[in-house]
């Protein structure tokens, strides 16, 4: 590129007047400069590619999640609070109770119905044991009451992807707040004190505060 000379005027500080400044042509670019520019450009391109790829991955995952939740077909009433939603599944000809006695005689459905109870949405996301796995479980723990078939199921509600990645046991237990630790330090009371000479060597005149760090010795 041809460098066009341009004249600029700079205000001089000495007399307050104007001085004509003619900037000289820039020094020719060195090989290492060109190399560095190329490296920076390549790095920027790679970064853009990476971000596009990451975005595509996220999109794919989100669509898969929506598909999965749509497959579950959980009818949910919009007026109900989310944590009280009833899990009901249309399972025809299964108007009886699975108990330890009927497990062996009754035919098992191919897809297990979900129990009818108040379930936290985070629990609803947990996988339910398969028919094969149920046979090896404790029978008392897999007693499931199956509802009569739902005649007119409500239209499915679009389920948002879960925010929590871990199941929350009970809303009332901790109110969703996570308390890492609480400490309590009792107020000190004046009692026996060391002789000042001993206190001077121990670092405190209070025996209850004389707690030396023993480190490795604590294991012995």
């Amino acid at each position: 590129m041809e460098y066009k000379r341009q004249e600029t005027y700079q205000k001089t500080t000495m007399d307050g007047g104007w001085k004509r400044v003619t900037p000289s042509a820039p020094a020719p670019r060195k090989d290492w400069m060109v190399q560095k520019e190329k490296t920076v450009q390549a790095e920027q391109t790679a970064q853009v590619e990476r971000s596009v790829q990451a975005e595509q991955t996220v999109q794919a995952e989100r669509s898969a999640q929506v598909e999965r939740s749509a497959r579950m077909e959980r009818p949910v009433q919009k007026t109900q609070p989310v944590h009280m939603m009833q899990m009901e599944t249309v399972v025809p000809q299964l108007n009886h109770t699975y108990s330890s006695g009927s497990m062996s005689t009754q035919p098992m459905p191919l897809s297990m119905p979900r129990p009818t109870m108040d379930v936290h949405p985070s629990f609803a996301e947990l996988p339910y044991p398969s028919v094969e796995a149920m046979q090896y479980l404790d029978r008392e723990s897999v007693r499931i009451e199956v509802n009569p078939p739902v005649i007119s199921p409500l239209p499915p509600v679009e389920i948002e992807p879960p925010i929590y990645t871990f199941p929350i046991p009970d809303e009332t237990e901790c109110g969703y707040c996570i308390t890492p630790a609480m400490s309590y330090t009792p107020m000190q009371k004046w009692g026996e004190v060391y002789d000042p000479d001993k206190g001077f060597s121990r670092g405190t005149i209070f025996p209850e505060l004389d707690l030396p760090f023993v480190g490795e010795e604590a294991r012995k």
Partner: protein
Amino acid sequence: MNEREVLLKRVQVCDFALNDTALYLNTHPDDQNALAFYKKYSAMRADAAKAFVDKYGPLTHMDHDGGDTWKWVDGPWPWQQQEEV
């Protein structure tokens, strides 16, 4: 341990006990036992300091006796001590 070191140690021990008691009194300002302990060792510290100053010169520059000589510079400097007292 010579006599100078013994007197100085006494001041240090009293100072330490007073300091520890002062920390306790910060949170228990009405504890009469602690106040009595502080009073006792405060007097003891004053006696020990007076004994030291009379014999070996000022502990701090505030121990200036008002005479016509500034005795603070007469004592040994920290790097002139034989060992840490």
